[in-house]
């Protein structure tokens, strides 16, 4: 087990390296040197262009040096100091900008996954044991709709419906009173009043997928002979169900966390832009529009890295929960 975990952890390093290159390519993609863009922006807004601060920026990013050196400077700052650089649009360190928003993004995503499981698994179990019942059909139908409606359109439609019916704006994550307030218990409580709408929207397509997988897995298990034997021996139906088939059917779902994460993060990004949440999405969007590329590239790097970590955790979890998996093989293919 330890060997397996260490192996997986070591595998993260080359992946992080490739990710950082991809992110750096994204930073370099827009035409033109970003400092020139920045200076032009300053000129347009009428501000005085301060030679000293430009010289400082050139030095900080190594802009007078070849591109690969710029990459190494960027990477060195991230690895040694956890410093992602400076956002030109906000004129603040990126770490400062991202910190709170990133934790809120992660919180939303994690809540969405938990909700997905809490809704998806019981419904999946129900649909499997009452196959072809009225509720099974209803859930299957909603599952299809849930898989087909993209989350940002769902968000649009829901805010429109709520606004036109009840006159309520369900955008944002806090009431006005708390929006800029420091973190207090009251603010946390206020957030948990608002957090459900985005969490439900982000989690919907995942939930729909989970219901279908859980139902299919459990149906496969229920047809197996050991279930018939157990039933013939007079095991109570409830005990029979939860003791073996459900446990076996849940195992493959744990590995789905790995591939759910990219889509959850994707969904979170676009839904939070539509709902205007104080998370990473809107900041990333603004950064892209303003071509504040170091901020945008850092976001891509962080979000992809978190996905890698999540996949790693789900692999370890799977190996831990399902004793049938041999550790040597999990990391391999």
């Amino acid at each position, binding site marked *: 087990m330890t060997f397996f975990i260490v192996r997986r952890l070591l595998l993260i390093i080359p992946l992080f390296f490739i990710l950082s290159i991809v992110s750096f390519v994204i930073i370099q*993609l827009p035409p033109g040197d970003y400092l020139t863009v920045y200076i032009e922006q300053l000129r347009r807004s009428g501000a005085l262009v301060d030679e000293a601060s430009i010289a400082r920026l050139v030095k900080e990013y190594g802009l007078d040096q070849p591109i690969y050196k710029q990459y190494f400077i960027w990477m060195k700052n991230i690895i040694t100091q956890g410093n992602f650089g400076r956002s030109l649009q906000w004129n603040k360190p990126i770490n400062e900008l991202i910190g709170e928003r990133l934790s809120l993004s992660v919180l939303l995503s994690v809540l969405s996954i938990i909700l997905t499981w809490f809704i998806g698994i019981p419904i999946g179990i129900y649909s499997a044991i009452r196959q072809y019942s009225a509720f099974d059909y209803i859930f299957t139908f909603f599952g299809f709709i849930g898989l087909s*409606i*993209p989350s940002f359109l769902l968000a*649009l439609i829901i805010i429109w419906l709520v606004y036109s019916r009840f006159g309520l704006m369900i955008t944002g994550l806090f009431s006005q009173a708390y929006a800029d307030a420091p973190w207090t218990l009251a603010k946390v409580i206020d957030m948990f009043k608002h957090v459900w709408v985005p969490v439900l929207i982000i989690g919907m397509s995942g939930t729909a997928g989970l219901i279908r997988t859980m139902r299919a897995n459990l149906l496969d298990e229920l047809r197996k002979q050991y279930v018939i034997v157990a039933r013939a021996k007079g095991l109570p139906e409830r005990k029979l169900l939860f003791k073996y088939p459900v446990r076996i059917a849940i195992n493959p779902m744990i590995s789905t966390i790995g591939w759910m994460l990219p*889509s959850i993060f994707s969904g979170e990004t676009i839904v939070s832009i539509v709902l205007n949440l104080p998370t990473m999405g809107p900041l990333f969007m603004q950064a892209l529009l303003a071509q504040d590329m170091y901020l945008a590239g850092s976001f891509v790097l962080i979000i992809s890295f978190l996905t890698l970590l999540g996949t790693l955790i789900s692999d370890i979890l799977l190996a831990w929960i399902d004793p049938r998996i041999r550790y040597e093989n999990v990391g391999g293919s």
Partner: protein
Amino acid sequence: MADHKDLSDTDYINEKEEIEEIWLASQWKLIWWKFRRHKLAIFSLCVIILLYILVLFCEFIAPYEPWRRFEDYKNAPPQIINIYSKGSGLQRPFVYGMKQEFNMETFRRTFVKDTTEKYYLHFFVRGDPYKLWGLFPGNIHLFGSEEGPVFLFGTDELGRDLFSRVVYGARISLTIGLVGVFISFLLGIILGGISGYLGGTFDEIIQRTIDFLMSIPSIPLWMALSAAVPRDWPVTRTYFTITIILSIIGWCGLARVVRGKLLSLREEDFTMAARLAGASEWRIITRHLLPSFTSHLIVSITLSIPGMILGETSLSFLGLGLQPPAISWGVLLQDAQQVIAVAHYPWRLIPALFVIITVLTFNFLGDGLRDAADPYAR
């Protein structure tokens, strides 16, 4: 392939059909027989065909030129087609005219139905000139009215007919899925083929690349890449760039299907037989292996089209994809970004309905095809 014993107990054949017919039927015939029992998939196929007819003949089907501004009808609501009116009874379909009123409570201009004016609808009406496919000039439109403007889906804030715009938008939104899937398909089949057939180092490199690409959240990556597309590029150039951006992740799924199938098929007896008979590698791949999993490929292709369409819609909706004056469903949805505007003019969400219908029907079709793809399986 599968031996004929499997066929004797298939349950999907219509009772009336002679058993002998099954024995003689080709693989594609069996697939078709199985597919047509899937009613929802057949229905979806019809809807998809209708949508692509819109794409082909959008100049003819749209009643107006999509950029034409009706200055007197800004933010006009959709008109309802009537066939009955008090007094004159049943008659040719018509819409009522509209007049503007100033609402003193909300201080907004609103349109109300003007029952004194009726615009009768006719088929094949002469209207705005166009060039079909940029080649054939014409001015006949599927329907329209000579008496006054007809807005089936209302107008936007510049007074442009939303119905015409949705019809034109289908051209970009629906073809980007096809073009994107075509590019992904080429990449997927080449790289997946190399990976599955040659194996070894190639396989390892390609598989790791796929794992890596699939672990990056797609929307942030697409957003970052398309933000780098210069705003002043011509529409066609942006269109193809966006398609390529969408395909960067799109090919992975297809490559996996191709590789998996090749891996299992190259162990089959008929591959060995072909090799013993002296067939070249190329011939084995193209004549023996590819045809055996074409049906599976069609399924994966069908199921990956909606993802592409949604990708374009999300990017354009955010303002990072295609830019106006280009028209796609995503571009049209940009008008729906403000909740308050949507509350006043809910017809701005109509393009969303089209997106959802498209994605749903492609999913149903893919589902039906998947069940039919392997007619020898039970």
